């Protein structure tokens, strides 16, 4: 080795690096940390895809069974039946709403009196039961004990009377009368106090009198309802036979799967005796093919009957339509009626199209893989673990997530951006020092705590407010469900305000101060400078803030799981804006709720993974768009 430096023999030139220095070790440590996070992200993606993609073949098979067993055929009629039932229920709701609306005063009075009475009963209940259940009461045994219990009851009775709910629709005299009748109420009394009975009777009489002019409407509804009876019975008949076929097919599928597992184990087994045994087991598991054709032939024989029933229904439904009243007096009643009349032509055209569908249906048509994709992406129902057929349609969940996001952003965008503009452009330094940390602190609140607050405080208050008479004009009021889309949206707004606020404030802060100076030197006021110069210059940053807020809203799980009400159904848009006050389920909530309970590797389990992938893609898309706006701004 020819070294330029003869002193150092082993290690080359003195400039050359020797050994593994401490600095390099540290650098390697940090590099490996960064690498690890990327690796984990890749693992997550791979895992999601591996678990999720198996969903489509599995779901395809389920849909195939659905067809071969004839469930699909029955569903053609079932769908019409449920559409018919829906219209019936709308008509009934219109009818009830009309009557109740007309005698709403009587209804309230009777409800309030009953509420007073039942509050009283609840409070005295335990002490009263002690007396009634005491054998001494009937046999006249231990009189002393009974006397003690009676005193007890009387004390509780007096106490309960001081503790009654308000009754704004009862006159003072009526309330007093009720209280008086309760004051001396013996423990053994079972009948309602006379005033309660009187108010109930008044309500019943009012109903009766308001129902009379609606007699024709009632008859129309009844006619409509009974027109669907034939369809109902034929559907019920067919249902039984197809369910049996389906079960047989499913059992065969399970056995087939078992057999394959055993054969695979046999192929891997080293011990020849073991192998023989496994193969024998596999042979035993070999199921005989269930008979599909026989039941199917019976089912197909029903085709003409089915067609006939539908044709009859079309005629009678068409005949009934002109008998419906044109309008009703109560606002919500006419809304239901309007929804029913709007559903009418759809129902008729569906019914008319049905015979053709029934005759052309055949169980031999193959189910392609794309059918599973389409059914997942456009399916309007998410039904799992049901007796009839499982459907994995993403629409109800996506609609729920979307509506909650709309509510959340409608509130959070003006609040977050408004606060950012104020703090950045108008607030005094001391205000800034107060407002910024406080808003950012909201982010630190654990979402489960917010959800708790949402259920116990916000949901309850909102529902109580919605019962005020003066607010009955608001669509959807009074709210039936304490947990609904609106409540969840409000809480998510609270959670996304800090995100939107901080990022929008940053964006405004990043606008060069020269713009503000130039604008002010040209004689623009603070307000003009803020809205004509600063906000437009920060626009892409503000847009990115909104998108990241949206990402947060879509991805949030805990709050929606606790507060959104978790009803898997597309909200009823016939209520208009009121649809926002209905409960709903979400993409995130369904995973959290169902993943713990599904059998590992089942189609349902994989469906949840596909939802996870969908969420992943959506949030990734939102964040990528936000990133695009942020980097475009920097240019």
């Amino acid at each position, binding site marked *: 080795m020819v070294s330029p430096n003869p002193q150092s023999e082993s290690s080359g030139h003195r400039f050359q690096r020797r050994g593994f220095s401490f600095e390099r070790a540290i650098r390697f440590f940090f590099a490996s940390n960064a690498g690890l996070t990327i690796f984990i992200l890749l693992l997550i993606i791979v895992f999601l895809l591996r678990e999720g993609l198996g969903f489509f073949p599995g779901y395809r098979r389920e849909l195939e069974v659905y067809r071969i067993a004839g469930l699909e055929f029955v569903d053609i009629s079932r769908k019409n039946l449920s559409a018919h039932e829906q219209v019936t229920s709308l008509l009934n709701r219109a009818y009830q709403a009309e009557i109740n609306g007309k005698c709403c005063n009587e209804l309230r009075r009777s409800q309030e009196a009953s509420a007073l009475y039942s509050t009283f009963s609840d409070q005295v209940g335990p002490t009263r039961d002690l007396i009634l259940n005491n054998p001494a009461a009937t046999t006249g045994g231990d009189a002393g004990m009974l006397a003690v219990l009676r005193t007890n009851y009387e004390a509780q009775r007096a106490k309960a009377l001081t503790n009654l709910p308000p009754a704004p629709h009862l006159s003072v005299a009526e309330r007093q009368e009720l209280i008086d009748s309760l004051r001396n109420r013996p423990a053994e009394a079972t009948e309602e106090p006379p005033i309660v009975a009187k108010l109930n009777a008044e309500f019943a009489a009012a109903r009766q009198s308001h129902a009379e002019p609606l007699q024709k409407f009632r008859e129309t509804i009844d006619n409509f309802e009974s027109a669907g009876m034939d369809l109902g019975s034929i559907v019920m008949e067919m249902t039984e036979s197809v369910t049996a076929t389906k079960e047989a097919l499913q059992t065969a599928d399970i056995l087939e799967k078992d057999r394959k597992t055993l054969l695979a184990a046999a192929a891997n087994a080293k011990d020849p005796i073991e192998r023989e045994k496994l193969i024998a087991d596999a042979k035993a598991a070999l199921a005989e093919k269930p008979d599909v054709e026989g039941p199917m032939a019976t089912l197909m024989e029903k085709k003409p009957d089915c067609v006939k029933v539908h044709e009859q229904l079309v005629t009678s439904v068409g005949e009934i339509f002109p008998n419906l009243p044109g309008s009703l007096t109560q606002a919500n009643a006419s809304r239901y009626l309007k929804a029913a009349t709007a559903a009418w032509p759809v129902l008729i055209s569906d019914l008319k199209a049905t015979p053709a569908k029934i005759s052309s249906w055949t169980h031999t048509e193959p189910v392609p893989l794309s059918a599973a994709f389409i059914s997942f992406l456009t399916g309007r129902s998410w039904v799992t673990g049901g007796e009839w057929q499982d459907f994995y349609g993403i629409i109800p969940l996506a609609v729920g997530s979307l509506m909650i996001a709309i509510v959340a952003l409608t509130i959070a965008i003006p609040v977050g951006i408004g606060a950012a503009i104020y703090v950045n452009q108008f607030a005094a*330094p001391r205000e800034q020092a107060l407002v910024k940390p406080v808003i950012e602190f909201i982010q630190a609140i654990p979402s489960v705590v917010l959800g708790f607050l949402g259920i116990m405080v916000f949901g309850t208050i909102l529902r109580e407010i919605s019962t005020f008479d003066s607010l009955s004009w608001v669509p959807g009021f009074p709210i039936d469900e304490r947990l609904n889309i609106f409540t969840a949206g409000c809480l998510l707004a609270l959670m996304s305000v800090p995100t939107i606020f901080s990022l929008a404030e940053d964006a405004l802060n990043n606008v*060069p101060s*020269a*713009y503000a*100076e*130039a*604008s*002010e*030197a*040209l*004689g*623009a*006021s603070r307000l*003009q400078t803020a809205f*004509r*110069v600063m906000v*437009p*210059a920060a626009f892409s940053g503000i847009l990115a803030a909104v998108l990241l807020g949206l990402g947060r809203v879509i991805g949030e799980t805990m709050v929606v799981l606790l507060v959104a009400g978790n009803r898997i159904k597309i909200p009823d848009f016939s209520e208009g804006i009121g649809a926002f006050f209905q409960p709903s389920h979400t993409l995130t909530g369904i995973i959290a709720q169902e993943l713990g309970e599904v059998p590992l590797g089942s189609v349902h389990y994989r469906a949840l993974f596909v939802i996870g992938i969908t969420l992943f893609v959506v949030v990734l898309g939102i964040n990528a768009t936000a990133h695009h706006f942020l980097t475009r701004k920097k240019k």
Partner: protein
Amino acid sequence: MNATPNSMQESPEKSASTPHAGGKCAVQIQNLSFNYGSSEALKNITLDLERNGVTAFIGPSGCGKSTLLRCINRMNDEIVGARVTKGKIIVEDIDIHDPSVDVVKLRRDVGMVFQKSNPFPRSIFENVAFGLRMRGIRNKAVIEQSVEESLRAAALWDEVKDRLNESALGLSGGQQQRLCIARTIAVKPLVVLMDEPCSALDPIATAKVEELIWSLKKDYTFVVVTHNMHQASRVSDKTAFFYMGEMIEFGETTKMFTNPSVKRTEDYISGRFG
């Protein structure tokens, strides 16, 4: 504002055509002292700026010339701790620090061009029209005419007339600075304050801006802060020399550069310090 004896002009057209009150002087600075926190930045300055004249402020860095310039349209208001401790500035017969003065209206009459050109990130047309729009002028024809006049006055019209709707950020540095001047004069102010307008420009662009100042002098009163002695001698009628917050000398530019009456002025002009 109604209490003001002569309120700031509302319409740009009017302000240019009506004869101004206040005689020969556009701006009178009387015994002005100014502090940043506890440090005194200006000490007892008295100075009259002539109408339709160009006054140059020269002096070494930190001498207070920019501070004085920014006092005239109260751009120092936004700086925390900055305040006038003594004296007053009179524009159009009113003390601009009077509580009844609306600073927004003051700045409409006292425009400003900054050291670094700062067009808004929007079209050339919209940059010039900005001040007019802020004043609530909506008439399209009026705005278009005013934009063209201003760009012509700023000798920029021929260069940009075919791309008025393109972003102002696509212009060269010199063009951007002339656009800023056009933007300022579009609202027809009485006084135009310029804070080292050419320090970021090359000699050719600088010459164009100087020509511009010279040609616009008949309509406006200019105050130019500059580090460049030659520029001061080329563009200004009068020059004020500042040193350590004090005004050392103020007089005709020709006299100042040929025969200064104070030794320190002479030292500075001849480059012995600064």
